[in-house]
């Protein structure tokens, strides 16, 4: 069961989403609020897996809420829900450390899909936003970039993303992107598999 908390200034949106999510077999709505200042308290109380958060809140800045959630010992995944499909929203959501972005100008079905994706650990942003996360030059597809090798080594060493971020002086989101790419290039599903593959390569005398 994915436990979801909804935070949006617009009561009608909350009501619609609640109705929609309640009908899904794998999702349950743990709480909701139209008041941005309540979000952190409600998260503490209900411990949701995913928070669906409107960035344009009136009582408090959505990015402040996001920062407060990120600071929690076990931060929930945060899916930003916004009406703006522009560079500005994307950038704010990424900078504040969101796990994904869903649009109110797309079908609510897309929001459902995005909730499941961020819950599964994916970063849900349009392809075009990658230029902000990976820098301007990308390595050849299929090959690991030097940065990805570095990240791989640390993943294999058992470090968490925030630890890797600190070690390499990168943001959490950047590390997450590297890890995602690394996994897809290595064809592994999780950190354990990535670590095993690293150890395997090292044993064969060909350390990556």
């Amino acid at each position, binding site marked *: 069961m994915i436990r979801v908390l909804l935070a949006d200034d*617009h009561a*009608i*949106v909350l*009501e*619609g*989403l609640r*109705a*929609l999510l309640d*009908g899904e077999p794998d999702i349950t709505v743990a709480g909701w609020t139209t008041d941005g200042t309540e979000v952190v308290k409600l998260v503490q109380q209900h411990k949701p897996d995913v928070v669906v958060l409107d960035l*344009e809140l009136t009582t408090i800045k959505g990015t402040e809420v996001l920062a407060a959630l990120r600071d929690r010992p076990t931060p929930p995944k945060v899916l930003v829900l916004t*009406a*703006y*499909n*522009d*560079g*500005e929203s*994307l*950038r704010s959501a990424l900078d504040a450390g969101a796990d994904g972005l869903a*649009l*109110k*100008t*797309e*079908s*609510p*079905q897309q929001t459902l899909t995005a909730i499941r994706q961020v819950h599964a650990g994916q970063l849900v942003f*349009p*392809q*075009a*936003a990658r*230029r*902000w996360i990976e820098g*301007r030059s990308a390595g050849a597809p299929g090959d690991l970039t030097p940065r990805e090798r570095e990240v791989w080594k640390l993943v294999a060493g058992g470090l968490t993303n925030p630890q890797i971020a600190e070690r390499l002086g990168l943001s959490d989101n950047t590390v997450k992107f590297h890890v995602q790419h690394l996994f897809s290039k290595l064809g592994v599903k999780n950190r354990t598999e990535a670590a095993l593959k690293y150890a395997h390569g090292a044993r064969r005398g060909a350390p990556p």
Partner: protein
Amino acid sequence: MTEYRDAEARAASRRLLATSERELQRIVLDMHDGPVQDIFAALSQLQVLERALAADPPTQQRSRQAVRLLERALGEIRNFIGAFRPPGFERRALGEIIEGLAVQHETLTEQGVELDLPDDLGDCALPTKIAIYRILQEALANGHRHSGASEQRVIVEREGGSLTLTVSDRGRGFNPERVLASEEGVGVEGGHFGLRGIQDRVEMLGGAFALESAPGRGTSLTVTLPAE
């Protein structure tokens, strides 16, 4: 005396630019706070209804049709909002604003934007920033509508006190003289290519404008503006 008048007129047009940006912002915020929220909420409810109607296919079909209509309306608003919300001109430096526009263009159109920005681009005066943003927006939209190219290239350079923006593609090109002439006196409707709008913005800030294109030869638009 004329110099003084010129300066005064230029200051007035700069203020006008900022005012029109504020007006746009207000319209976009109204759209966001009203229709978008309502339609999104209505769609959520309708999708619940649609599931409940599984036993009644003809009625379910009608509800599905309503869903499609609302999704189309949302899509139209999406294109409008995406194109017109002014970015955080006061909060973000020039480079970030240009990157934001490139990302937005790629997301909305799936046409690539190759961006060439110097690391030390720095920031510039607000009217110049607004002008560069709007000109780039218009140029990218033109390149998407008319060039047929899969990618556009954007270069921004700073030399001394001026900034130069170049937007180019290797698409089908056109005859610039003919298009510019056809946009003379288009009035409030604006021309098809919006080139007049670009020229007007450049003139207002005392910059320079150059357009190179020929059928089959691609297009390159270069605009130079004072940074401060």
